[in-house]
């Protein structure tokens, strides 16, 4: 133990007039650390985004890896997203029906279900489901590659990891989210009709005609395409968390968890902004 620094305990410190030794002043360091960490994280994200953007727009393009990621993000997430959309559609139909029945307005139920699913529930649920499945997958995969020096191995092979790993995954998320949203919307509307027709039979054709009555493309396209922004957020946050990982298996777990938590949080926050933006621009 010779030469080891001894950290004085509060009891060892000389008494300071005006301060009770039993309650030493609490240092402000945790708050400072939190603020520093906040700016450091966003600064790092900004630098990371710039590197990815620069890598993505300059050749050579990684078409094969992009197609692999489109499959990973798109077709692998399809069953889960469709199932979540179906559940939301069915629940909405049942809940809205009981509310509408109080006012004798069950005739507008198809419109209520269609608008709710397509304008808000479908996009949001798709964003959250993909945040969970794809965000955790990308975060854990890249973090594992980082701690086992596989990303370094890519770099020393003269291949830009921002292009090969990050830009392909982010682009796949941007492209696939709107398509997955369409799938969630379709299954939501379908299950909304099933839930409705079990209580009060109505043909699917009638349900759709009533549901979409008076609507235009601008009612449905902006909410669907806003999920491309969700895709950008999910891909960017997950790749950033994965590629900055440190600290072995624990770091990999932390990266996966943080990817899901942060991506979900930012998707919800972005939704608030995008909904307002869509209302201002399109209505």
């Amino acid at each position: 133990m010779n030469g080891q620094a001894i950290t004085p305990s509060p009891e060892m410190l000389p008494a300071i007039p005006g301060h009770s030794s039993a309650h030493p002043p609490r240092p402000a360091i945790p708050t400072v650390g939190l603020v520093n960490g906040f700016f450091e994280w966003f600064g790092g994200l900004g630098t990371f985004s710039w590197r990815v953007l620069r890598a993505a727009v300059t050749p050579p393009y990684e078409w094969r890896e992009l197609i692999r990621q489109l499959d990973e993000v798109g077709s692998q997430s399809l069953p889960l997203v469709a199932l979540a959309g179906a559940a939301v559609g069915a629940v909405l139909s049942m809940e809205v029906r009981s509310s509408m029945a109080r006012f004798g307005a069950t005739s507008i139920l198809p419109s209520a279900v269609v608008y709710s699913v397509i304008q808000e529930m479908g996009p949001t649920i798709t964003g959250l489901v993909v945040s969970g499945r794809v965000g955790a997958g990308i975060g854990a995969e890249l973090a594992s590659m980082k701690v086992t020096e596989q990303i370094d191995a890519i770099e020393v092979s003269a291949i830009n990891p921002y292009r090969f790993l990050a830009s392909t995954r982010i682009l796949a998320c941007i492209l696939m989210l709107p398509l997955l949203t369409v799938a969630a919307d379709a299954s939501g509307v379908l299950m909304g009709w099933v839930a409705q027709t079990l209580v009060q039979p109505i043909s699917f054709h009638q349900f759709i005609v009533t549901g979409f009555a008076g609507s235009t493309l601008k009612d449905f396209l902006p909410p669907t395409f806003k999920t491309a922004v969700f895709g950008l957020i999910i891909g960017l946050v997950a790749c950033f968390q994965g590629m900055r990982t440190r600290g072995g298996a624990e770091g990999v777990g932390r990266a996966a968890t943080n990817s899901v938590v942060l991506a979900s949080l930012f998707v919800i926050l972005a939704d608030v902004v995008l909904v307002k933006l869509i209302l201002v621009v399109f209505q």
Partner: protein
Amino acid sequence: MATALETPTSLQDPEEHSRPSVVAVEDLFKAFDGQVVLKGIGLTVRRGETLAVLGRSGTGKSVLLRLIVGLETPDSGSVCINANSIAALSLDGLNAVRMKMGFLFQHAALYDSLTVGENVAFPLEHHRRDLSKSERGERVNQLLAEVGMEGNLDKMPSDISGGMQKRVGLARALALEPEILLLDEPTAGLDPISSGEIDELVLKLQRERQMASIVVTHDLHSAKTIANRLAILDQGSVIVEGTFDDLQQSTIPFVQEFLSHS
């Protein structure tokens, strides 16, 4: 594989000494979080020469390799590859230099989602687009045969031993026919027979390809076998550099202690 190891060609020929340095490291400093790891390192390696960098764990041997390949940037000092400072290069320029280097990581760092064959083919797919699929396959087979891993093409990295992973890592490092080979602890964690096989492989490559190699290791026996010159690092500085005989004659207490414990 269990034949007696040959000793590396010594650089006794004066012409060999007049060859320009392929790798030249000058006055290199690097610190992490305020802790100085490298303090003014200077080393040179010529074509056909193997330099072994020895030292205790945590003395910055691996950091030195990472600086040479551009995975880290030095706080001061320079790394020159073929007389070009890598600090002055753009990313494209650095990548062009990296294509002349092969790097074997301490734990091989094979891509765990790809098979052995796909790992070796990976650099070829990205940088040798002129090769057809069959030519690439042929080249992969040839590289795997060179490291004694033929017939393991479709195995996953997790299904092969540590020694085999290092051989595959070496095949991948050689895929682009580099001029410079950087080996980070090539025999660490291997049994004596596997270590001997890796040493023999490095010697064979040195003989056949005449590459400039830097081997970071704490295995003195391996260093003595494969290297023309040895350098010992202590507390971030090169304290002695020369042939094994030079090291044995050193009066520096740390060198004597290092040699006696190895």
